């Protein structure tokens, strides 16, 4: 079911869409079942004979499986390609790197735009509400289907980091090491509030059509763009916005109207409009909901440490960014405190940067150095070096 596509530079890549038959449904936290299940994924490198070099990279809210290869819709480079390549932190010559599109997504995995076998029409709002736990369960199904017992590492930033935490809680025996970047163990009121603004913007767009816009042949582009604009502000720090744009104008003088006078307005509009080309509005609703429902300690009587007691053999690396106000450093410290409380060995570093949450995707030598050091040490411990 995989489609091997060799690319230049000798890196072996693979992936495609993995289809699980209706007899293998995905059991959801809500009690519902999702079948048939499809998972869009990409791989880089080759699984070694011992099957000990698999690295799962988990993407953030609007990311996808195109970790380090050209995006099929936008034509842009992969979202983390600065970390993936020969000699880089994730090296396809040493690691078998897997990235899956989360369920609920719109890049090949089953989501609200997929066909509902019951109606032969897109799911739309008939798609069941999903959780981070469901996303991880689907990933675990794929990992197993690929013949991998234990991941050398699971790595993710933002929502990807939450998936990594969920992996540690649900599948500790399948995890050797875990890297959690700029994440949180639960969504705060402020996190939920910002997501609610985005969802309301989408649902207020008449082209949303109660979620059935695909049948109606329209797209709620304006609503989705506004959702993206609001969210994008939370990805940047105040300093970064000020440094990038200040009060700079687009052209000489004010328009005395509501055009994009300021560069920051133009930038946000661009972020919004380019986003709608590659993302599905209902996917945005479902995935933000999954994030809002995320509270890893809740299942364990509110004691987060209890979620990690079976993960004592897993080596953790938790990283935060000093200027990230979406998932600020205290959130990461709470995770580390819980890991310590559970008796897990955890490393934690706060990376000094003024780039905000977006620093996950930007060039930061400290992040590079830290990840490299941690993974090299884990590779030695795993016998990969």
């Amino acid at each position, binding site marked *: 079911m995989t489609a091997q596509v060799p690319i230049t530079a000798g890196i072996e890549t693979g992936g495609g869409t993995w289809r699980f038959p209706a007899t293998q449904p995905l059991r959801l936290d809500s009690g519902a079942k999702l079948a048939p299940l499809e998972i869009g994924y990409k791989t880089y490198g080759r699984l070694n004979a011992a099957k000990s070099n698999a690295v799962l990279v988990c993407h953030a809210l609007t990311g996808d499986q195109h970790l380090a290869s050209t995006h099929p819709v936008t034509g842009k480079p992969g979202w983390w390609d600065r970390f993936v390549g020969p000699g880089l932190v994730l090296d396809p010559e040493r690691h078998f790197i897997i990235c899956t599109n989360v369920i609920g997504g719109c890049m090949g995995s089953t989501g609200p735009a997929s066909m509902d076998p019951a109606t032969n029409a897109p799911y739309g709002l008939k798609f069941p509400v999903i959780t981070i736990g469901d996303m991880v369960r689907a990933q675990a199904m794929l990992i197993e289907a690929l013949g991998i017992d234990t991941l050398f590492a699971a790595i993710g930033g933002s929502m990807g980091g939450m998936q990594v935490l969920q992996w540690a809680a649900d599948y500790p025996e399948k995890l050797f090491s875990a890297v959690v970047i700029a994440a949180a163990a639960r969504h705060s009121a402020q996190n939920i509030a910002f997501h609610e603004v985005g969802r309301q913007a989408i649902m207020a767009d008449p082209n949303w059509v109660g979620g059935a816009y695909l049948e109606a042949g329209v797209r709620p582009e304006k609503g989705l763009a506004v959702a993206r604009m609001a969210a994008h502000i939370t990805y940047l720090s105040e300093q970064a916005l000020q440094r990038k744009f200040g009060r700079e104008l687009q052209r000489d003088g004010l328009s005395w109207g509501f055009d994009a006078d300021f560069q920051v307005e133009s930038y946000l509009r661009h972020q919004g409009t380019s986003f709608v080309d590659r993302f599905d509005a209902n996917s945005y609703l479902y995935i933000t909901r999954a994030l809002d429902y995320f509270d890893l300690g809740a299942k364990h009587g509110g004691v987060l*440490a209890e979620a990690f007691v079976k993960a004592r053999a897993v*080596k953790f*690396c938790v990283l935060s960014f000093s200027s990230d106000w979406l998932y600020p450093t205290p959130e990461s*410290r709470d995770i*580390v*405190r819980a890991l*310590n*409380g559970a*008796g897990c*060995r*955890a*490393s*934690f*570093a*706060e*990376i*000094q940067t003024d780039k905000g949450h977006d620093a996950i995707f930007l060039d930061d030598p*400290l992040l590079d*150095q*830290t990840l*490299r*050091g*941690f993974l*090299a*040490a*884990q590779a*030695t*411990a795993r016998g990969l070096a």
Partner: protein
Amino acid sequence: MSAIREDFAEILKLVRPNARVLDIGCGEGELLELLTREKGVDGQGLEISPEGVAACLARGLAVVQGDGDRDLDHFPTRAFDYAILSKTLQQMREPKHVLSELLRIADQAVVSVPNFGHWKVRWALLSRGRMPETGALPEPWWSTPNIHLCTLRDFTSLCDALELRIDGCAALADGKPARAIDPRQPIENWRAETALFLLSRKAEPQIAAAAPPPQNLFGEVELAGAEPPAKKGRKR
């Protein structure tokens, strides 16, 4: 192997193989790496500087970026066999709290402190009336990070107040081998430039009692006022 710092060499001697060790203020992880390599310890560091944390990570050590003054409460009770605090207690805002935290987190604490009762310190004050600048206390008063200096007598009386047992003590001096001492001997309060202590709680909790320290920890010195040595041969 290059020359090892005297205090590291002493700590290396007294830490049991495969012990769980928390190194507070672990810097770039030299000691943890040494303990991991030589004793196979399960180590965890706590370090405030980003450079130190990055260096530890690159060495493959588990390290948490944090402040010993604030972040010790992150660690659960009795999570470690040893908590090590090397030459930084006097820089803590609340040394008494930190000391009792060390022995909440770990069964034994390894703590080294510069001795403000050392004769050079006393002489500097007495003869020149100036704040001392010695090998163990190299910085002038206006830039020193040391805000809570103490003498050996001060330290041992704090241990008494916290009901801690001194399982061993050695005097350290630059370039000289460590010397086992009884820190309660008045002469040592003049002679020891820096002292390294091995501490434990006086009242041993019932569960999972720590193995007794080896008899000949810092040499054959009877510790005045110390508890009678624990029974030999009890091992984990």
